[in-house]
């Protein structure tokens, strides 16, 4: 019971923090409104996908250092494919890129299970491999995004019967994010497979004894991480209109958001909601630092300090929990 409260407590605390930051934003910039929310959610999109993927592998007890590189592969692959196929091939491109992501993740997972080399080492090596693959696909930024697809994440939604005053505050990119996460995570977390992921992360031995196929579960978790990385890469291509072979800053950002979001490094604890909220918190923070025109160098210090302090606080809570 106490644990349950504690777990939800963390997410609730994050939500409160996010609301506080929104209020602060409104105070700093009274004009902040629909377009600001749209900008925010579009900026959060690739971070949120990277974080979702990372959260799943951390829950299963691992870590994936290659997440940003896989995003780059998916980004350039989708840009190159869309360049070749244009608007008509959109659906095909999406399916192909998602399959590519699943395959990359599954390869990571299979290598971990088969070689018995620790996750962190395998994915470190794969970081270089996927980075190289991205460069082999496009040696310089290029390709293009199908306009039809770009429209998916641009602007607010239009819902019949709802006044525009309301729909203006619901950016399409947010809807896309929620739908993608929900389509994968909601069924998963209610399925046997979702349970397996938590069980393996929590206690592999007990999970094995309860009949969980450990190796398979790990591979699936990594494949899902690859899937989300592909979504992240796709969202990069759609928002920039091109594919960039150099991985962006998504690895460290996703690890930070996952930990801030209440997922314990080591596995078994946490969900996707906390990390996604943490992503938004970090993005709003970034925005507020810009709105306040804080010295850019100071803002790096602020971001680092907030990360360290929040995690230290989490460490304290965990320590007290352990003592009790």
């Amino acid at each position, binding site marked *: *019971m*106490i*644990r*349950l409260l504690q777990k939800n407590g963390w997410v609730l605390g994050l939500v409160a923090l996010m609301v506080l930051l929104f209020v602060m934003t409104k105070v700093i910039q009274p004009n902040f409104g629909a377009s600001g929310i749209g900008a925010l959610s579009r900026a959060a999109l690739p971070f949120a996908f990277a974080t979702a993927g990372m959260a799943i592998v951390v829950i299963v007890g691992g870590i994936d250092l290659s997440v940003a590189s896989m995003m780059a592969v998916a980004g350039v692959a989708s840009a190159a494919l869309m360049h070749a196929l244009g608007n008509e091939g959109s659906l095909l491109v999406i399916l192909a890129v998602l399959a590519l992501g699943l395959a990359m993740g599954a390869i990571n997972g299979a290598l971990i299970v088969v070689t018995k080399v620790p996750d962190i080492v395998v994915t470190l090596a794969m970081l270089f491999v996927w980075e190289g693959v991205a460069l082999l696909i496009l040696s310089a930024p290029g390709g293009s995004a199908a306009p039809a697809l770009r429209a998916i994440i641009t602007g607010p939604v239009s819902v019949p019967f709802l006044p525009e005053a309301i729909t203006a505050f619901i950016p399409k990119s947010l809807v896309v994010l929620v739908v993608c996460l929900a389509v994968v995570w909601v069924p998963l977390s209610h399925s*046997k497979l979702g*349970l*397996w992921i*938590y*069980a393996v*992360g*929590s*206690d592999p*031995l*007990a*999970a*094995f*004894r*309860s*009949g*969980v*196929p450990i190796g398979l579960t790990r591979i699936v978790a990594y494949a899902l991480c690859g899937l989300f990385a592909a979504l992240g890469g796709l969202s990069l291509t759609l928002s920039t209109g091109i594919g960039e072979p150099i991985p962006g800053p998504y690895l460290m950002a996703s690890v930070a958001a996952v930990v801030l979001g209440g997922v314990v490094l080591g596995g*078994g*604890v946490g969900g996707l909601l906390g990390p996604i909220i943490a992503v938004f918190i970090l993005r709003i923070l970034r925005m507020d630092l810009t709105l306040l025109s804080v010295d850019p160098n100071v803002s790096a210090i602020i971001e680092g300090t907030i990360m360290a302090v929040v995690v230290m606080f989490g460490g304290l809570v965990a320590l007290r929990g352990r003592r009790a």
Partner: protein
Amino acid sequence: MTEAQADMPILDAVGISKSFGAVAALKDASLRVGRGEIVALMGANGAGKSTLVKILTGVLRRDGGEIRINGQARSVRNPRRARAAGLVPVYQEPSLIPDLDVRANLRLGDTPVEPFMARVKELGIEGLRLDDMIGALPLATLRILDLARALASEPDVLMLDEMTAALPADLVERVLKVVRAEAKAGRSVIYISHRFNEIAQICDRATVLRDGHTVGDLRIEPGVEDRIVELMLGQSLGEGLRVEPRAVARDGTPRVRVRGLRAGTKLGDVSFDLHRGEVLGVVALEGQGQDELFDVLAGFRKPDAGGFDLDGTPARFGHPADAIAAGLTYVPGDRSEGLLMARSVRENIALPLLARPRNWGAIRMKDEATRVKAAIEKLQIDTRAQGEVRKLSGGNQQKVTIGRWVATGVDTLLLFDPTRGIDVRTKRQIYGLVRELSDQGAAVLFYTSELDEVLQACDRAVVIFNGRVVDEIDTQTADHQLLLRAAYGLTEKDRLEAAS
């Protein structure tokens, strides 16, 4: 059902063998269980009981032998297959996932919820909610949940590995009742326990393992206990094993005086004295508070009430380092808890010498080598594989945990079940060593889960039952029967009263 089918054992394991590296846990183990039968699987610590259960339930793969279910040879390759074949275990350690709630744990093994909850009630746990997190529940509850989960899946053969070890007496009664009822309803049960009274209450037969061999198969009837013990140990509980009893002078200030100690839910109120030059045994069933007692004395936890004096001065430890500084050294029963498995014998033995920052500098290698060599010789540690402790046999590993303190010099030794999984010869070496150390003036507190060790290694014993000291035993006059009764809280006084 034809006559032949009724006779056919539901489970028949023949000639099972299993080695872990150099350790042969099982050599030639056989076990036969008939329908509706409750079979006790008996054997000394380390005889291979748990290993056999793990093989039968697909957690471990056997090296050799055959498993027949309903007369058909089956490979039980993993837990899922075992479950499908009707073999359902409750392991010695809780096997629920700590970070999931009860409901999720049930779903993991496809356990139906309604029957499970009914079982939980029947077994005496009130107020369990399906959204309780496993990690927040007490150990005894977890054992019951493990059992309820196993029962709810309607197994053909239920395997209970020291199911009752961590349970309070009332829950034990419930468990025994339920198990008996299950057998009546036609299920078979394999029951592992070190408690003879439980065996006598519910079991039909006992299969005895010794050093990985099945050495006997007996019907449970009055007076069979002695025979079982003889089979378990390979010799009768006779003179051969006994170290000569001795009288120890206990005068002056005690080295350790424990006063009204309370810690956690189990250790209620314990007081006793431990003198220099004596080996004081602690007699207790599983879970009577002995873990907490040792934890407090070793500096792992603080007492909730009461305390202890060292040489007449009150002491209080915040860290094991404090205990060590005060001369109290602790040897855990679980070797994996005390050893650096991947490091060498030498590093393990020398570890305490380096703990304090002032010893962080250069190691005097010659000096260290001499000390380590002396400890190795004294304990006769087999050093053929000393590069990594995990390659040593269990007994030799245990010697290393003790040897560590021999190298630093022993003042007061806290031995918690130090002979777990150790062969008979090694055990005797350890008794001899303990005796020798106490002769040199050390005070030794000795808890063992094997009652007869108390007679062989200790000068005196206190009996802890339900978190309290209920009796004190003079090992020169006591016998096995008396210890056994005492351990169950039936003290000498009670017996005399009953007799009169």
